[in-house]
């Protein structure tokens, strides 16, 4: 009879238990079970008015005050403008600014400086030719495209209009840069892993 659960046992079935507790005065109505807290019968309770309502008021006020505090905090945080993450490339590390060691370059001979100037001029010319070739190529491309579109327009107006519309499948466009050497045919790379150690900035 000791394996009791509060929900399963009805109060009046435990009269035997109450009789063991001999200290109970006979004046007090025999309480059915120790699970029934009030002196009244099963499933009744005294009309309690004062205390629970007080608790509700205090709770509501506390909750409201908490909400207002949170709203104020939110407003304060939202007021601060968002900042851009500082880019480490543009910040010179301190070790290059502190030390004051200066390199003294050797004096150049006349032939050497002459050679360098001539090399610079050749490089400028090469770059100019390259740039001009690029401009010419762009011009040729644009011209041929315009001519093709004109011919298309003469052929059929519908196709011309469809050709002029923008291509949705063009973006996003991704391309890896060319490599110096092609990949080795039977290369077995060692196992390893990459850990991201980028510094996380928080405002």
């Amino acid at each position, binding site marked *: 009879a000791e394996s009791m659960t509060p929900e399963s046992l009805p109060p009046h079935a435990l009269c035997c238990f109450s009789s063991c507790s001999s200290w109970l005065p006979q004046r007090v109505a025999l309480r059915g079970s120790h699970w029934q807290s009030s002196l009244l019968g099963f499933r009744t309770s005294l009309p309690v008015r004062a205390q629970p309502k007080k608790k509700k008021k205090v709770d509501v006020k506390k909750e409201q005050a908490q909400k207002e505090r949170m709203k104020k905090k939110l407003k304060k945080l939202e007021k601060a403008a968002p*900042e851009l*993450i500082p880019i480490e490339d543009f910040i010179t590390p301190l070790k290059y600014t502190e030390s004051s060691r200066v390199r003294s370059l050797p004096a150049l001979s006349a032939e050497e400086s002459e050679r360098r100037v001539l090399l610079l001029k050749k490089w400028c010319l090469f770059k100019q030719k390259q740039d001009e070739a690029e401009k010419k190529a762009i011009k040729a491309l644009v011209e041929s495209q315009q001519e093709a579109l004109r011919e298309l327009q003469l052929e059929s107006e519908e196709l011309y209009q469809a050709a*002029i519309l923008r291509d949705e499948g063009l973006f996003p466009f991704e391309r890896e*840069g060319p490599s110096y050497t092609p990949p080795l045919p039977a290369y077995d790379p060692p196992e390893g892993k990459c850990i991201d150690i980028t510094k996380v900035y928080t405002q």
Partner: protein
Amino acid sequence: DALLASRRSYRSRPTHGIGRFKYLLPKEVPKKRKEKVQMKEISAGTEYQYGDINIQMTSHDLCLVEHFAQYVHRLCNRLSIRVNESYAMPTKTNEVLFLEERGSKMQLDAVLTTHQRVVQIRGLSSTFAPILLEVIQSSQPEGVHLLMKQHTEADFKSRLKARPELEELLAEMS
């Protein structure tokens, strides 16, 4: 009232401008107000024009990617394509570890930094877009990864610092 009324400027009198003194004080430099970082409007573009497009160049080599970004910017200037912004994304650092041949310990191989530069253009016409792509591809250097995509708010937000407190509060409120 009488004092205010007596402030007439007798320009012919020698006492004209007798109370002036502000011209003697040193000029005050107006206070520099911090410009708030605000997102610019993202245009969607019309049927014959693309909206905001981001040309993102990523590489491990800093100088190469910088020079390539400068070249793309100058190219767009020359071809009279409007360039909204040309900025750098924060650098990412990666530690590369590899497993030793005889042993179970991971050995540090190198610390690699990935740099990214973005050139944002607007109003690229639909007929010129493939030509521009062709030109940029032909001059793409080794090791530089090119990515062209539409600009979104998420791209802009990735440049800003994370605000964990704000997010926490927002999560609690809702």
